[in-house]
């Protein structure tokens, strides 16, 4: 049975296939760091990092290039430019005509895609191992030779505007999420919408995109991650040949403003005629593995697992099973970020349960955790689950590449990724409890309520009939 649940979309992919991956990542929050991938690493003379995860199951490879720049690095007034540039990276160079990049990849039996978040922008191709040379040549080419003109930029601007309508404006839950983040971050650019605010998107220009490209796209600000059926002896000469010849760019620093001390909880309530099911969520500012108080990150991963992950977690058992006031509750926490992370809690009330009563019950659960903490048994079970998730992550061709790329892109090291199981194993009950006390601070939180119109829900239009046809083997 498919049970809809709230999810946090953090990736703004260029096409639907990538979106699918993004959703799966969002639904499995603790996959973020969850594996030892035994990668091999190198650094080219121009500063570009190279990471390889060997996987010889099938004669295929994934190439990913991650740029250490995202929407939180945008100048004021051009929100969405990081994501727009991601789209425009497919608009050609002297050697590859506009729009041909993906067609060439497809003609060679590959898939390609790209994604943008607040902290990084990534491009990837999945392709037969003997075509890696080709896609690496093209990826290196567009790192430095992108050509843009209004005749390709302006139609693509209409595309991202339609993308915004599809993802955000047609979806009240996504609209509320934008409002909540803007409230949670009073100064830090994480409060920005990745895809951009509509009025600024409408004004984005070719020059805006090129300025951003020239500043941030350089080998010393990029990471090459390859996973699949290839060895470092084969990979490194190829990387040197294509990426190694690109001149190093300026030394870049991310000048992110810091959040001020926050003094009051915020509340955002949205009534919308399109809302059939009320729900609430709360975001707390939380440390990441790269921020101040990073030592709290592993304890918070375990805390999230204990209280809000799965159907036997504390909150689910209390509110969905025992008290029977919610249809679902849960938590989410992704600690891989340049600056602060978000610890989230969400709940959907059962029929005839007021959202305020559900929120009160969630608050009681949080108060109980803060007052009494978690148990040793809960901690041990959570550790086992997180450690097991590493095995599942290794089964996928791209999971290792994604985790490593994302971690390096926010400033973490390969060693930090690889030592993750040790770090999780070493966490104590006291560390979880102290981290819980610090993160559940209402003064640095925002609570969002999503509700039907005040005059009641729009009348039903009859039963639901999702499309689930066409699955088959071709």
């Amino acid at each position, binding site marked *: 049975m498919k049970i809809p649940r709230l999810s946090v979309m953090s990736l703004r992919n260029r096409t639907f296939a990538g979106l699918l991956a993004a959703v799966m990542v969002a639904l499995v929050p603790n996959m973020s760091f969850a594996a030892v991938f035994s990668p091999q690493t190198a650094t080219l003379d121009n500063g570009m990092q190279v990471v390889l995860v060997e996987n010889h199951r099938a004669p295929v490879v994934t190439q990913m290039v991650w740029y250490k720049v995202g929407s939180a690095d945008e100048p004021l007034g051009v929100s969405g430019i990081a994501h727009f540039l991601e789209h425009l990276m497919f608009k050609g160079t002297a050697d590859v005509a506009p729009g041909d990049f993906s067609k060439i990849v497809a003609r060679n039996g590959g898939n390609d895609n790209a994604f943008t978040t607040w902290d990084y922008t990534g491009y990837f191709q999945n392709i037969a191992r003997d075509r890696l040379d080709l896609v690496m040549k093209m990826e290196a080419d567009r790192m430095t030779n992108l050509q843009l003109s209004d005749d390709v930029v302006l139609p693509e601007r209409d595309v991202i505007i339609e993308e915004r309508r599809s993802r955000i404006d047609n979806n009240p839950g996504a609209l509320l999420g934008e409002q909540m983040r803007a409230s949670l971050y009073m100064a830090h650019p994480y409060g920005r919408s990745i895809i951009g605010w509509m009025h600024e998107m409408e004004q984005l220009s070719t020059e805006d995109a090129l300025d951003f490209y020239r500043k941030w796209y350089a080998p010393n600000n990029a990471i090459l991650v390859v996973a699949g059926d290839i060895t470092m002896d084969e990979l490194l000469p190829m990387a040197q040949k294509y990426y190694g010849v690109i001149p190093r760019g300026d030394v870049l620093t991310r000048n992110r403003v810091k959040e001020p001390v926050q003094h009051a909880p915020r509340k955002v309530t949205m009534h919308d005629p399109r809302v*059939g099911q009320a729900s609430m969520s709360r975001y707390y500012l939380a440390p990441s593995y790269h921020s101040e108080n990073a030592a709290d990150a592993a304890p918070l991963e375990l805390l999230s697992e204990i209280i809000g992950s799965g159907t036997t977690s504390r909150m689910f058992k209390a509110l969905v099973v025992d008290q029977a006031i919610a249809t679902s509750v849960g938590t989410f926490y992704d600690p891989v970020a340049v600056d602060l992370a978000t610890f989230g809690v969400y709940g959907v009330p059962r029929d005839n349960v007021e959202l305020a009563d559900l929120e009160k019950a969630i608050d009681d659960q949080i108060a109980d955790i803060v007052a009494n903490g978690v148990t040793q048994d809960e901690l041990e079970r959570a550790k086992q689950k997180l450690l097991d998730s590493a095995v599942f992550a290794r089964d996928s*061709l791209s999971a290792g590449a994604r985790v490593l790329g994302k971690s390096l892109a926010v400033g973490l090291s390969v060693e930090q990724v690889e030592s993750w199981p040790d770090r999780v194993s070493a966490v104590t009950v006291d560390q979880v409890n102290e981290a819980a006390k610090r993160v559940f601070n209402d003064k640095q939180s925002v609570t969002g309520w999503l509700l039907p119109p005040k005059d009641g829900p729009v009348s039903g239009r009859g*039963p639901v009939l999702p*499309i689930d046809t066409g699955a088959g083997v071709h």
Partner: protein
Amino acid sequence: MNQLMKQVAGIAVASMTILGMASAAQAVEVKEVVSEGGIRAWLIEDHMNPLMTMDIAFTGAGAATDPADKMGLANMVSGLIDEGAGAMDSQTFRGEMENRSISLSFDAGRDDFSGSLTTLTRERETAIDLLRLALSEPRFDDEAVERIRSQIVSGLKRAENDPGDIASRTFFKSIFGGHPYARPVSGNFETVAGLNANDFRNFVGQAFAKDNLIIGVAGDITAEELGPLLDEAFGSLPDHSDLPVIADVTPKFGGIDVVDQDIPQSQAIWGQKGIERKDPDFYPAYVMNYILGGGGFSSRLTEEVREKRGLAYGVYSYLANLDHAVMMMGGVATRNDAIGQSLSLVSAEWTKMKEKGVSQEELDNAKSYLTGAYPLRFTSLGNLSGMLVGMQKDDLGMDFLDRRNSLVDAVTLDDVNRVAAELMDPANVTVTVVGKPEGKLAF
């Protein structure tokens, strides 16, 4: 399901059609395992990681079998059988799963009732026992029933005003009329409220049997190890299922329905007649669809609607095959004042494909993608076990993985153009638009 998830679901289907598989220079050996008790499974051994996946399907046991006054029954059972079984109540059962990192889930489609199990080798015995209990001794305790009912109702409420859901239910009602395919898989508020433990038990007794069971396994297990586990998991099922026969149906295509909704972007889906999986022209049609709207940035629809004119983020088409009906479908979302333009561009491509077919270059490019991307399907165990179920269901043979690329390569320009002329039917397309479209809509 919110609108985003809806789109994702739609695309997951589309990507199934563009990511084909066929022979490649690699050894993926499909074995048939028959247990002592006569349970049959297909297996791909892969010992790279200590885990295995098992996909199963009870064919013909999907939502199409729901009685009209019990719509949503199969779906609700799929949510309940892993919520307590044997001596274990829900929390005990789920605790066994979650504490041992065992994933077990069930799903009711229109045609089949399916299940999926993923486990570490370390927990294999427990995982198989949980699967056995879920299929043969589900409890249907009141607590779990009411909880799952509340989740389904919550999903129905969420979907009520979702543009994607509105579009699909309107579309399916329009083309399927009184056939069970017109009914909602999740049921409606009235029918879901009325379902009870007797209904669930009856369903389980009739739907889960050896004669409609298909099993695909991939991962860290040998044929010798798998055999006894098959008997353990499925040996106690009855020999024969007892399911209503669903009639084949020819959907009724033609006309444009508009459902008013105050949103900035109109969402459109459309469909026309399709082609049977067993039809000798299936692969020509499949290649044709890749060129038309299945091939992402390489497709004509994306080129015309997105790349040249910026009218949409996504536009696509796909072959949608159910057991008793076949369709060719598509979708696009465009701002209200330009949805008409998007639809007329799609319509023009429909007609152009019918009248002029494709070029040799387009055909060559499509084949090189469809055959070259084949090994990408072999990169995770879950993909493999799922494919094994699909191959058995469609009766493709154990050697299908070796034959598939030759099936694609054998498609000629004449084949594609002949099939395009026969299949493409721009005069009989049903379109559903949800939003506030401006101007005249036509296909």
